[in-house]
């Protein structure tokens, strides 16, 4: 799949690929225990975070199933990196991808995650022509579950005690949205502006 239109810009944010200079900013949230719990990789110290960043820096396009597009989310006004949104192409035949996001807790509760995730879903459906995008989230992670719901994703699964995580039973939610169900962010915005004007 061709990657054009990067970086993405929204009202307050820019979504761009990662750079080596992002280490401190990424360290600022990856290494936090509450964030670490939801990552698939170890990021406890500078060496481990650098390794994670090196992987993410190479995740700039979706060429074959399994590939990940990793985008850093930066504020437009001061260029602060506040988190990340990724899309993993899981299935070419059925045009499916998995969305993930991680934000620095210091910048929460301002609607940034919603704005960034919405832009990534727009990209997935409009540019990558995906059919369905899904996201998994721990059942105890209320803020993430709420965000996915607010964006209009449907709760498709609640797996109870389906795995062990650090010695405890894990509960997992799956949310998903189909291309024809997705309300494009930009179109909605234009419509609202026109109606206001």
């Amino acid at each position, binding site marked *: 799949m061709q990657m054009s239109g990067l970086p993405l810009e929204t009202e307050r944010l820019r979504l761009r690929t990662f750079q080596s200079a992002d280490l401190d900013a990424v360290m600022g949230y990856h290494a936090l225990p509450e964030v670490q719990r939801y990552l698939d990789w170890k990021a406890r110290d500078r060496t481990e975070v650098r390794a994670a960043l090196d992987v993410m820096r190479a995740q700039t396009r979706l060429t074959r199933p399994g590939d990940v597009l990793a985008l850093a989310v930066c504020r437009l006004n001061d260029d602060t990196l506040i988190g990340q949104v990724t899309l993993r192409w899981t*299935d070419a035949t059925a045009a*499916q991808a998995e969305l993930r996001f991680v934000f620095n807790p210091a910048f929460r509760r301002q609607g940034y995650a919603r704005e960034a995730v919405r832009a990534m879903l727009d990209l997935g459906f409009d540019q990558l022509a995906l059919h369905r995008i899904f996201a998994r989230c721990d059942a105890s992670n209320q803020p993430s579950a709420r965000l996915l719901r607010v964006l209009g994703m449907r709760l498709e*699964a609640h*797996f109870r005690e*389906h795995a062990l995580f650090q010695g405890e039973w894990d509960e997992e939610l799956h949310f*998903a949205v189909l291309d024809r169900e997705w309300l494009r962010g930009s179109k909605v915005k234009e419509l609202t502006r026109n109606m206001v004007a």
Partner: protein
Amino acid sequence: MVYAPALPIETDRLRLRPFTRADVDAVFAYRRRDDVTEHLFDGPMSHETCTEVVQARIGQTALLAENDKLFLAVEAKRDHALIGEVSLILRDKGALQGEIGYIFHPDHHGEGFATEAAAQLLEMGFSGAGLHRIYARCAARNTASWRVMERLRMRREAHFREHAFVKGAWVEELVYAILETEWRQWPAR
């Protein structure tokens, strides 16, 4: 964990036993049918494929490693006819997760045989293999299949919409599951 049940196992009306080479024709009788395979990932089988499948199942009667499968032929006690097949798969050894499956000849649908055999499988999975959670999957359109899961008091944990594209069509999949504690609490048994 090693689970190698003593076979055959009998329920009220059924006998669950290992497959033998002599089962090929009886299995082919339902595996060749469109109305059986329309809800499966496999298409209708040729007799040759069916022979290979049955041959492979003869030795699959124990669970040791992850993704090991226990396949049993289901016989009606009344006439010893093979009417279907059931499976128990070890999906996660650490978290003690298993998956059950069942396929029955359409001539024997509606008699509660699948429910009777699947209940026995759940009992084997929990009491025999010591599993913590057992799940089953089916196509959302396969009403007969998910009704069996509901009769077994399994919970609908997932309804995936258009998450796969198989044999030229979008697939909707249901996942039902039951925990060991829930199975023990079921008073109706």
